[in-house]
């Protein structure tokens, strides 16, 4: 089988998943969720008002037709307008998703690089004091609540020391940079602990392999064993893991964006929740799921290219 057939076959496999996502979302919102028109207008709304709103949302159709509407929107990429802002959802998502990406991508790269280096150090000194200390520090970093990080860092670095902007955003390069510095640092702190532990486990898995013993028996130094033989093998799971994380960069961090008033996708979602904006939540959920499925596919393809053992 060549790569093309493989990709085609994997694409076909994603179809039941995408239908599954649509069904699940439909089940949650249209069946369990009750009547959104009632939620939106409150319990004192007049019957006529409710009826017209229901018509406007397409809720007066049968459940089957509503389901077809949902499936159609997936393939046409048309999720309609937000109830709250009355703007086209896709346009708003593109704009805010890009802002989220510019906020989360640099910390993502920095956190990766830092945690791989630290994990290498930890793996080099495995079982020794430095390794144990690094593991303990990463567990500590993982155990602090995200909200505590945000509040503490904002209060200390922005409020007390006045090093960064307290909150806010300004569109356009390079104005926005000063606003994303502190949120970026917080994102690094949030992810680095679990990253270090993950990469350390991956590296140690490799270090215990037979071919590493062979490399040592050749007379290679521990440093070149680690950087050549261990790292090249470990890069396969590491790169795979990194690619699966990419879609989440567009989604951004809900709390951080909302807290620092950065108009990214995360903030957009929080607003939608606070205003009971069903179509937006539905659209974001479905779209992010689809992006995730596609990135998974991409990961598998890259995996087959990276690992010479994988035969198609």
């Amino acid at each position, binding site marked *: 089988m060549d790569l093309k057939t493989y990709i085609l076959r994997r694409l076909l496999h994603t179809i039941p998943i995408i239908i599954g996502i649509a069904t699940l979302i439909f089940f949650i919102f249209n069946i369990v969720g009750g009547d959104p028109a009632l939620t939106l207008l409150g319990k004192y709304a007049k019957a006529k008002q409710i009826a017209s709103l229901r018509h406007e949302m397409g809720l007066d159709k049968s459940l089957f037709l509503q389901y077809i509407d949902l499936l159609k929107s997936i393939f046409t990429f048309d999720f309609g307008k937000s109830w709250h802002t009355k703007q086209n959802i896709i346009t708003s998502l593109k704009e805010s998703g890009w802002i989220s990406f510019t906020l989360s991508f640099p910390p993502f790269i920095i956190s990766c690089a830092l945690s791989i280096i630290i994990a290498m150090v930890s793996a080099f000194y*495995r*079982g*020794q004091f430095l390794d144990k200390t690094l593991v303990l520090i990463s567990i500590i970093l993982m155990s602090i609540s995200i909200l505590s990080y945000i509040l503490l860092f904002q209060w200390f670095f922005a409020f007390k020391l006045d090093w960064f902007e307290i909150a806010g955003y300004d569109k356009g390069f390079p104005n926005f940079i000063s606003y994303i510095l502190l949120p970026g640092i917080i994102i690094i702190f949030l992810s680095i602990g679990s990253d270090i532990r993950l990469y350390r486990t991956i590296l140690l898995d490799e270090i215990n*392999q*037979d*071919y590493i*013993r*062979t*490399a*040592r*028996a*050749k*007379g*290679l*130094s521990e440093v070149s064993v680690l950087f050549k*033989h261990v790292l*090249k*093998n470990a890069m*396969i799971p590491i790169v795979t893991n990194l690619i699966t994380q990419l879609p989440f960069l567009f989604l951004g961090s809900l709390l951080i964006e909302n807290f620092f008033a950065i108009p990214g996708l995360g903030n957009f979602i929080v607003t939608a929740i606070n205003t009971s904006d069903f179509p937006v939540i539905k659209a974001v959920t479905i779209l992010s799921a689809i992006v995730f499925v596609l990135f998974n596919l991409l990961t598998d393809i890259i995996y087959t290219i990276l*690992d*010479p*053992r994988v035969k198609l």
Partner: protein
Amino acid sequence: MLSVKNLVTTFQTRQGSIKAVDNISFDLPKGSTLGIVGESGSGKSVTALSIMRLIPKDTGKILQGDIIFNGQNITTLTESGMRGMRGNKISMIFQEPMTSLNPVFTVGNQIQETLILHQQLSLQQAQKKAIELLQMVGIPSPEKRIKDYPHHLSGGMRQRVMIAIALACKPDILIADEPTTALDVTIQAQILDLLKNLQKELAMSIIMITHDLGVVAEFCDDVAVMYCGKIIEKAPIHQIFAQPQHPYTQGLIKSIPTFHPEKSHEQRLSTIPGTLPPFHEIPSGCSFQNRCQYAQEACKGLQGTPPLALAAQAHWAACFYPLHPKTHQD
């Protein structure tokens, strides 16, 4: 060439410290082959790793003893000095050919690595040498194979590649740790033949670690039998098969299946009762006492551990009651 004196290697476990190799000594003359035989867990592989100084640092260490190689004590060498030995003067091949090669580098790359490291060859020179080496170990069309990844090759081919890597720098000593155990019987014979021929060609000494007395009989000049981290018998090959001194060795030899069609219905294959005791439960006195049909009071620790003593000419055994004792006067 190589002489190991009173080597003790310990490991830290949750039950405390254990002696995986307990006070062993042997000599390996130039060009000769020593077989180290024992059940799994008897300390054979640890002996090999001790000579390579590849004992995992976090749990194990060489507690005492000397390993003298060409007049130099390698237990006191610096780590970088030792790296100059490994793969260069002393090489090792392992039991698992399927997993001992790095899956993400080509075969050629892995052979060249040793050459570039120890002989400072350029990439082109190393490549040329790698092809020669593959030819030497009997791999067909080597100029194509050097671009292959290990998973393209069969187990026997991979073991040949391992041998090529180990012999790249013409080492003085090759340690072969169960090199044929994971292979088919026909491939086993091919690999052993290859090693024998290369030994003559390169005039190297081999330490052959195995649990298979058949391999030893075919391949070695001398044999050391290990049990619970100790050498319990050491002798030239013909002597050990003709007149084993230690009951354990006798048991091992008796448990080799033989083929006598006319007698098969009346003769059952003999076995050694029991199993190797765990390291923290080794009895005082002779460690084999619980499985030995000849065990007597003296074996149970009152007279200490039986020392490795001369039982016949050039034949050492660690037993109070050797089976075929002969003194020098005979």
